[in-house]
Every structure is written in C-alpha cells, then in structure tokens.
C-alpha cells in the first residue's frame, strides 16, 4: 500500500501532518530540537507572547494530579521584541511552520503584539490566547463573553496580515456561543481547549500547592471535555478547528479528528515523553494504514 497522506491545510497554511506541540509546553522549540528534528512536526506553537516581558507567577507553578497536571506559569515570557529578535529567527530556520500564541490584558496589547509578529514575517499564524483576564473589564477573561471576544478578534484582524486562530477557554457555559462569535468576527480558525481551572491542596501544609492557589488542568484527565467541545464546535462553525487536551497517543489524535478537528496540539504529553509528538504522528500513520485510509479527510468529522 502507498504511504497515507497525513497533510492537512489549516487557515490556508499547509502542514505536513496535523500534529503541533501546544503553546507553553514546548518553549520556543530549542529544548526539544535536541530530541528530534522539528521539521517532523506539522507546526510549532510557541509560548504566549506579551507586549512587555513578564516574569510570571511565584513558585510552585506546577504540580501533578491524577492523569494530569496543574500549571500557573503566569505567561512568563521575554516580551514580543525579544521573541522576534532572539527566538523566532532560529525557529524559522528549522523548516517548520510557526504559530505564535499571543496574550494581553487589553485589546490594544493584543493588537500591538499581533502586528509586530505579523510584520516580522517570521510566523505563519497567530493564536489568540483569550484565557487572560481583561484588566479593563475587571478580570473577566476575554474568552468568557462573546461580545468582548468578537471585538478583540475584529480589532486584531484589522492589524494582522497572517491568519488569526482563536484559542478558546473551556471554563464557560457555552463553548459554541464563543466559537460562533469568533467565527463571525473573522477568525481564521479555532483551537481548543485551553486548561480547565483546578486546584490541589497539600495535606502537610494544609494550603493549596500552587503559589497562585488555582491553576490550569491539562492532560488525559481533560480529554473527554476537550473532545466534547471540539465535537460541539465542529457542528456549528465552518472554519477549521485545532483540537487538544490530553492527547498522548495516535489514537487520541484520531478521536479528535473524527470529532471534526483539522489539526491537533499536544501539550502535557511532551513532559511525560519528549518524543511524544513524533510518536503521535507515527501512531496516526499506523492507524491510517491499518484502516486503509488514504487521507485524513476520510475520517474528519465522521463522528458528527
């Protein structure tokens, strides 16, 4: 049998396979490039980038829970200027598409970062992390209200000439309402899910383990919620969806594709196994061979 075709197209970007490391779980790619060539990946998604450098939260910032982990990194990053100067040029030489995850506390911050990334010519897309608290609106996250979200997307689209993917937070009553708002405001794609908000208490200190008290839950524990949200969203939007949440194996990725995702992102799994992404790519390929699939289009959304 001829090799199956794993390539996908998302928001106009051609990827050799649907697997991308998730934002915040892969730094700027340098660390994992020691384990395998980044050119094997569909794309690389870099850490959340903000206008100004951020040191992030106090430690402990990470802790383990059953089938998952909690993190409260606090968007630590050197700021967009530094990222464009020091990180992206190196990554751009690795022969892999780059998606830059961006965050901000005001619409204008998002817009400035998106514009700088877009003008740098070094990235193929931006991914808006809308789980950040909107300081102007008293801490409500951008991703919790469809009107606020739509306005953000519209403003960013105005200044950004590369595709804009909106990464939704799962901590909402209706994911579809937000996905629709993003689509209508002009988003080129939707990625989901970001982390669920969780907590762990240390029985010895009798206090929350994380210095920030609450943190984002990721890993296999959240996979059923993620899959359900991809499924619900795929039924109502027409723009491509990138699914993530607890993907550890090729089969997990296939489930997301069957639920309607065009691509998948892999976060926590990188920490458990530095070779997670290439193994997942190989796992998807094995599944396609076993099932006689020529292209991922044969199964995309088949569970809808």
């Amino acid at each position, binding site marked *: 049998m001829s090799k199956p075709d794993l390539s996908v197209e998302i928001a106009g970007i051609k990827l050799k396979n649907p697997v991308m490391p998730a934002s915040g779980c892969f730094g700027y790619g340098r660390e994992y490039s020691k384990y395998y060539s980044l050119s094997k990946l569909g794309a690389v998604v870099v850490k959340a980038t903000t206008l100004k450098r951020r040191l992030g939260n106090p430690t402990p910032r990470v802790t383990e829970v059953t089938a998952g982990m909690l993190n409260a*990194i606090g968007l630590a990053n050197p700021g967009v200027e530094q990222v464009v100067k020091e990180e992206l040029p190196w990554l751009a030489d690795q022969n892999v598409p780059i998606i830059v995850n961006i965050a901000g506390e005001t619409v204008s911050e998002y817009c400035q970062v998106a514009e700088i990334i877009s003008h740098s010519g070094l990235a193929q897309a931006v991914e808006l992390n809308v789980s950040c608290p909107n300081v102007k609106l008293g801490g409500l996250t951008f991703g919790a209200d469809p009107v606020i979200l739509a306005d953000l997307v519209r403003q960013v689209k105005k200044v950004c000439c590369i595709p804009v993917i909106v990464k939704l937070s799962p901590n909402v009553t209706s994911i579809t309402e937000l996905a629709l708002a993003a689509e209508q405001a002009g988003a080129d794609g939707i990625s989901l899910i970001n982390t669920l908000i969780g907590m762990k208490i240390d029985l010895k200190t009798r206090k929350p383990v994380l210095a920030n008290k609450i943190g984002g839950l990721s890993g296999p524990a959240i996979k059923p919620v993620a899959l359900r949200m991809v499924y619900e969203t795929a039924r109502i939007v027409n723009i491509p969806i990138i699914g993530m949440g607890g993907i550890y194996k090729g089969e997990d990725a296939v489930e997301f594709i069957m639920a309607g995702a065009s691509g998948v992102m892999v976060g926590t799994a990188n920490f458990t196994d530095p070779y997670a992404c290439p193994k997942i790519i190989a796992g998807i390929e094995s599944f396609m061979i076993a099932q006689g699939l020529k292209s991922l289009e044969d199964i995309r959304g088949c569970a809808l």
Partner: protein
Amino acid sequence: MILEIEYINNLTSDIWEMKLNGDFPFNNVQAGQFINIRIKDSYDHLLRRPISIAEANTDMQSLTIVFRVVGQGTKWLSQRQKGDKLDVMGPLGVGFPLPDYNRKVLIVGGGVGVPPLYQLAVDVSKYTKNVHILLGFRNARECFWQEKFADKGELVIATEDGSRGVRGFVTDALKAYKSYWDYVYACGPRPMLKALKQYFQGQDVKGYVSLEERMACGVGACYGCVCSSEDRGENFRICKEGPVFPWGEVDI
C-alpha cells in the same frame, strides 16, 4: 533512555540508594546534574521525578542515585527491584563548575542534598587536596555515605541532636573551622543555603548552590521551575540554567 537497576539498597529508614546500568552518556555527567525519572507506565503519574546524579562511573557504565521517600513517586521507586527497567532522561541541567587547581574548597550538604555532592567531591579531589566536607543530618540514624565522603576530603558531620559529630546545623559547625575557602559548594534545604550565603556575605569566596523546585518538563520548555534574581530582575529555569547557580546570582 531505559536503564536497568543493578541494585537497590536501603540506607536509612526512608532513604534509598539505587544503581543503574545501561546506555547513558556517563562520561558527560557533570556533578550536580540530574536525571528525570518516569514513574510507572500509567496515567497515574505523568510528571517525571527529578533526582540528582550522586555518582556516575564511566568505567562501570553505572549511575547511582540516592532518594528519600516523600510521596507516591519516590515510594514507587523504592519498591523497584534489581533487574527492573527505568525510563530516564538525562543528564539534565548545569552542574557545579570545578575549582581552579589547588584551591581551598568547602563542600556543604544537608539531608538528601548530600548525594550529588559525592560526585562533586570525586571530581574536585582531582583538582585539589584541600577539600573540607561538612554534612548535616537530623541525627545519627539519618546519616549515610560517611565513609565514601571521608575518602574524598576532610569530613565533618553535624547532627541536629548531636547523636553524631557536631551538635547543631552545618552553620553552627562552620564556626569551629579555622580556615578560609576559595570555593563553597552547597546543596540542601533552602534555609541551609540561605544561612550559608549569609555566613559568607562579604567574603571573597566563590559560592555555588544547587536549588530545587517542582518541575514539569525538566528541560527548560515549560518555565515551571524558575528561581528569581531580584537584582537582575529576571528568572532562571532551575532545570536548564541550574540547578546549580553562583549564589550571588539568585535569590535563595
């Protein structure tokens, strides 16, 4: 990398020593570096556990670690047996820089901060014969590797209850020395490191400390394990830029 357990030994009531063999860049190990160990092949524990390399022996192609059972992961580790396989990443991080020749060196350790200092003592003893080693434990029953260390330098033990060596903390024992040092290397609980740094404040000595923090990736990708440097207004990743830092560069 998959390493095989050559032996596992109980050193104290809750401290274990484990020797590992297999394909590993033993000759690239720098004292103070660590390995990151997968706990079970299950979803119960997704994060690896960082454990310092206590001894790396290129000739014997072996690696020794020493760990205290504090939770589920280290408990699982302590229940492994000879012949079992472990999935490890490493060597990770940046270890202790070695001293210039013939300088005076002080090595200070506390509790399970002691093990990585053994490899350091081995390496340092190739550069100088002037090595003082000062190890603090809670009590005599908690002491381990005393003979091994005694072999590598002039050893002083301090125990909190005085059941062996000097009574008190390592900083108490420090006052008894009538020497000065060019290098101080330390690994142990934060309060010990803090006290040491204070003790040598203003003295012309190069101090290096090994720090700990909860880790996720262990390679520098997640920014989970930072320590801060208020002076420099920046953070360092303990797993990548550390775990060993010049004590002037980080807040302890």
